[in-house]
């Protein structure tokens, strides 16, 4: 999936990989994601378990950061209430681009068990911030969260950094018209 996979026979190829700068950058980015240390509800307990001994989240090259300004991605682990929603939006806006969001658990995806009578629950965090990966479950197993992380890595691997700039510029131009 990554850059090193192209090196299927390193001895014959002499250890040379041909690729673009983008590939290298993406490879670096996707394997050293830092996340915002932040838990909301029950899913956060599974999230803690994932950080601990048996599942060892840090082998993905991940380090928890206490401030959004140093974080690459945020994991919304739990129920987002209306009182909390505005804070989450602020947190998201404080993060520096490029930034990603993983929505963990049914609550963050769609309101979960509280979808019907929860007058104070936001039915899905995607109503306020963009979400890149959804992890279903109530609570999702730690393995599922890791799968979500791998999905995010894949997504970052395939991102086009330079072309994105270009595309954004084009969009801007379109808007101005």
């Amino acid at each position, binding site marked *: 999936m990554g850059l090193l996979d192209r090196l299927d026979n390193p001895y014959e190829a002499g250890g040379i990989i041909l690729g673009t700068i983008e590939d290298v950058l993406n490879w670096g980015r996707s394997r050293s994601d830092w996340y915002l240390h932040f838990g909301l509800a029950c899913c956060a307990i599974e999230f803690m378990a994932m950080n601990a001994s048996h599942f060892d989240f840090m082998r993905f090259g991940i380090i928890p950061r206490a401030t959004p300004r140093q974080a690459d991605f945020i994991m919304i682990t739990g129920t987002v209430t*209306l*009182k909390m*929603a*505005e804070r989450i939006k602020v947190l998201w806006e404080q993060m520096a681009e490029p930034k990603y969001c993983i929505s963990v658990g049914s609550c963050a995806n*769609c*309101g979960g068990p509280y*979808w*019907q009578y929860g*007058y*104070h629950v*936001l*039915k899905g965090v995607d*109503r*306020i911030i963009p979400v890149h990966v959804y992890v279903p479950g109530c609570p999702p197993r730690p393995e599922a969260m890791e799968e979500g992380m791998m999905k995010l890595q894949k997504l970052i691997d395939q991102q086009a950094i330079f072309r994105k700039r270009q595309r954004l510029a084009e969009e801007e131009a379109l808007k101005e018209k």
Partner: protein
Amino acid sequence: MEITEIYNKLKDKFGDSVKDLIISPPSDAFIAIASDKLFDICLELRDNPEFDFDYLMCISAVDFSENLEVVYHIYSMNKKHKVILKVSVPKENPVVPSIERIWRSADWHEREAYDLLGVVFEGHHNLIRILLPYDWEGHPLRKDYKEPETYHGMKVPY
């Protein structure tokens, strides 16, 4: 001390403010009292060494279509007996004296009852919402509550 004994003693002291003792198993027996004397009765329950109620377990408010009822579960750590008091107030003017100065644990319970059911506790030092945002409208645990369409621009129903 059994609840009948407590009831009789309170009745002797406070007369008509202590209304009835209702026993109907399997429910717990409770004493219905008038809201105006609530503070004095609670003070008596705490300070009289015969009762010695020092532990307020819970305050719950309940919406019965015309009335709001506030239920006090009180326990005594030393004497190991408990008593349940009930105060009923009309829904239009739900004012109950605050007992926060007697048991400090009542502080948050009363704020919660105010927040979710709109019972006003007279004499509470800081009666503001506790769970819901400060600018929330309505009291959601009332039976006729309708959830709002939007809150700060966010859609509330699914």
